[in-house]
């Protein structure tokens, strides 16, 4: 069969890429081989536009066991405990079929974690939708939330929170980023690198159907009005089967019969077999007649490119297959020996007795083209001058407006749909700065957070990228955890556009600087480009998932105020940065100007000293000051603890509205006992930390001088009403 230009284009390949393929294999590929190339060479699997920059990211420190390149990253948290985690996007499928798209996103990321031998102990997610008024938003929100819940709840893995955001730039491209976290004995980690010739290649899990064919290529294409055509590529998730697969895999992993294991995610059987062979510098031979199929008369092309869910590829030691089969049969799962490893360094596929594909593994892995795309810098926006009117705003009215806005309203409506107490180790639930999950049977825990900030990143990508990392760091510190490492999900528009590529490059620079300075390496992640519809790209949205450790859970803190008559301090200096703030956006309708800049020295110093205060038991509650400024942070502390506060501002050269709503970075609010004042101040002074008193706690209301006093019940209602009303069934 001759490969036409049209066929090449349909496979998402450029003509010069096709020429390179012909050169690499010395002939024209057949249709099956073309399909395999398209799966391996697309942006989603190959990282061809991003690789150059990803290489520069800091990925190592003393707690990192495995950085990027495996199914997920692994960090050491002491006593032989390791944490395996990763975040991944499922944006395109979720836009087309929100429930199934989100569900299979959760399913896929969970497999990445248990493939490596870990029992998943938490999931998180960062989901972004268009403006609430947009006709598609409500359905997408409902579908995505039910899909995440449907899958995670059934698996019995607690949801440790995340974020839900609205921004009109996501009207036609919503984001669904799912993160999974697992726990494993650090001596029992499984990798995907194949070892040894003539070892058995085993297929386990669900049967292969015609679903999701070319899902990975879809994730690398932009949408247009005809996206309907791309519809058949959405898969249906079956969390029940995944639960069985999880238990069966963990049962097999107790022994030592697995040489290597890889889940079949994007580009299914193709990418899993190629990756295993490539890492082991081996070849692989597969007899496609042995692949368990759900439908009749499936072709090799369909089998190799299907993205049916809940499947794994395992290389098993010769002789151990009987025992392995017994385990998978017990759990009612398919188990089939479909091939073996070879020393040819080729991917050889057989069907009905004849060879149907024969490709060098390197042509699908190391020889994938890498692009050095052109990029353009986003200029640093200027601060608008002569903005005086905002200083006259009433504080309480502004607070109410922000507190009831879609982005700042309580997300209880969402969290309540996710099981967050299953497994009995959720010691701090979602809704705070970070969730805390106890390591089963021990007195230590891990703190988890996901953060993003599309507005900051769009305004000035470098500051934005840096800010997201610092925000994650701060959220972990706020619960008393030592931040250890992050995973990132980089959501951007079309990288073939210089401005988008520039956003990517500069966000990554910011991320890299912050990670390096804070010793907060990146151990896993993914890149999602082409979040674009009709030529309109989303705002750059790198999502950061952070993990920290609390070695003694007795030292954990939370953001809820604990008692009346205690003091609330601001740690870190308030300079009055108003641009890109919630006050400007939600109240004044000003979207211009630069995001706040970060001084990494202060960031690190403030965080580490706060940890010291926490470890000395001087801190009763802590909360990082982020969007909305001091006043929003204080309100959240009040609402969660059901304790009021009386705000007192020390004299400074800012107006009250600036002081309370500014979004300067590297700040925390902390509650301390009056008797601990001296000890706390001494430590802060010794370490040159800037701090100020901001409030005294009291019963049931938030007060500010003579300007206002509002009951917490009213504030709570303002904070929860929007979401409830938005989703009410009338």
């Amino acid at each position, binding site marked *: 069969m001759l490969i036409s230009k049209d066929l090449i284009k349909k496979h998402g390949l450029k003509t010069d890429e096709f020429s390179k393929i012909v050169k690499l294999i010395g002939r024209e590929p057949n249709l099956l081989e073309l399909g395999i190339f398209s799966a391996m060479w697309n942006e989603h699997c190959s990282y061809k536009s991003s690789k150059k920059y990803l290489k520069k990211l800091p990925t190592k420190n003393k707690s990192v066991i495995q950085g990027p390149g495996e199914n997920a990253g692994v960090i050491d948290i002491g006593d032989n405990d390791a944490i395996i985690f990763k975040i991944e996007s499922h944006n395109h499928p979720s836009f087309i*079929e929100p429930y199934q798209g989100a569900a299979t996103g959760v399913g896929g990321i969970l497999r990445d974690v248990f493939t490596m031998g870990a029992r998943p102990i938490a999931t998180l997610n960062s989901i972004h939708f268009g403006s609430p008024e947009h006709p598609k938003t409500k359905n997408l929100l409902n579908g995505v939330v039910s899909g995440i819940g449907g899958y995670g709840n059934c698996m019995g893995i607690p949801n440790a929170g995340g974020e839900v955001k609205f921004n009109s730039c996501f009207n036609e491209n919503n984001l669904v980023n799912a993160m999974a976290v697992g726990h494993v004995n650090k001596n029992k980690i499984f990798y995907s690198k194949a070892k040894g010739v003539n070892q058995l290649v085993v297929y386990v899990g669900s049967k292969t159907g015609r*679903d999701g064919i070319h899902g990975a290529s879809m994730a690398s294409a932009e949408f247009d009005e005809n996206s309907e055509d791309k519809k058949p590529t959405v898969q*249906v998730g*079956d969390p029940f*089967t995944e639960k069985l697969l999880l238990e069966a895999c963990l049962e097999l992993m107790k022994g030592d019969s697995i040489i290597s294991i890889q889940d079949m995610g994007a580009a299914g059987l193709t990418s899993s077999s190629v990756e295993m062979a490539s890492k082991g510098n081996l070849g692989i031979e597969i007899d496609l007649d042995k692949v368990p199929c759900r*439908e009749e008369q499936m072709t090799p092309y369909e089998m190799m490119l299907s993205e049916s869910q809940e499947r794994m590829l395992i290389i098993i030691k010769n002789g151990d297959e009987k025992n392995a089969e017994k385990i998978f049969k017990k759990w009612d799962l398919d188990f089939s020996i479909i091939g073996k490893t070879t020393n040819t360094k080729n991917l050889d596929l057989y069907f009905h007795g004849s060879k149907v594909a024969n490709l060098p593994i390197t042509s699908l892995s190391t020889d994938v083209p890498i692009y050095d795309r052109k990029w353009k810098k986003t200029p640093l926006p200027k601060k608008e001058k002569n903005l005086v009117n905002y200083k006259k705003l009433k504080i309480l009215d502004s607070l109410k407006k922000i507190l009831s806005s879609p982005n700042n309203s309580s997300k209880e409506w969402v969290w309540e749909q996710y099981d967050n107490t299953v497994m009995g180790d959720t010691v701090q639930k979602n809704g705070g700065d970070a969730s805390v999950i106890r390591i089963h049977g021990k007195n230590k825990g891990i703190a988890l957070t996901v953060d993003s900030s599309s507005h900051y990143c769009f305004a000035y990508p470098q500051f934005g990228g840096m800010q997201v990392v610092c925000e994650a760091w701060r959220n972990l510190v706020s619960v008393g955890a030592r931040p250890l490492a992050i995973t990132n999900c980089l959501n951007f528009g079309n990288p073939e556009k210089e401005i988008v590529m520039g956003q990517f490059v500069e966000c990554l620079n910011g991320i890299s600087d912050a990670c390096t300075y804070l010793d907060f390496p990146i151990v896993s992640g993914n890149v999602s480009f082409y979040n674009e519809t009709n030529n309109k790209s989303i705002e750059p949205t790198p999502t950061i998932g952070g993990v920290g450790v609390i070695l003694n859970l007795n030292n954990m803190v939370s953001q809820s105020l604990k008692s009346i008559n205690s003091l609330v301090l601001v740690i870190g200096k308030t300079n009055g940065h108003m641009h890109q703030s919630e006050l400007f956006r939600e109240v004044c309708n000003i979207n211009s100007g630069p995001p706040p800049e970060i001084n990494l020295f202060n960031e690190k110093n403030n965080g580490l000293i706060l940890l010291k205060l926490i470890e000395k038991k001087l801190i009763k509650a802590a909360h990082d000051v982020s969007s909305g400024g001091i006043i929003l942070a204080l309100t959240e502390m009040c609402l969660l603890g059901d304790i009021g506060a009386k705000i007192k501002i020390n004299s400074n050269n800012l107006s009250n509205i600036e002081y309370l709503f500014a979004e300067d970075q590297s700040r925390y609010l902390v509650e301390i006992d009056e008797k601990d004042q001296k000890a706390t101040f001494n430590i802060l002074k010794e370490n040159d930390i800037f701090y100020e008193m901001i409030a005294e706690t009291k019963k049931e209301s938030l007060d500010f001088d003579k300007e206002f006093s509002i009951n917490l019940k009213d504030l709570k209602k303002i904070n929860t009403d929007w979401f409830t009303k938005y989703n009410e069934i009338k």
Partner: protein
Amino acid sequence: MKISAIVTLKNEVLDPQGKVVKQTLKNMGYSNISDVRQGKFFEIHIKEKDPIKGRKLAEQVCKKLLSNTVIEDYKIKVDE
């Protein structure tokens, strides 16, 4: 008029529920059952007398809300 609509997953789409029901029936001894697919049934009451217009409306409702044509098919029957 009353219109019934049945929405089922497309044949080529995995139906996890149908799969489990089939397996259970087999375990219960119903060995002749080769496949089960599960779906949803809707009864739609329409203020319309013309069956052609009624069917058209029902088609629209099925396409826009009751089914997601990415993964589901629907069948419509005009009852009365």
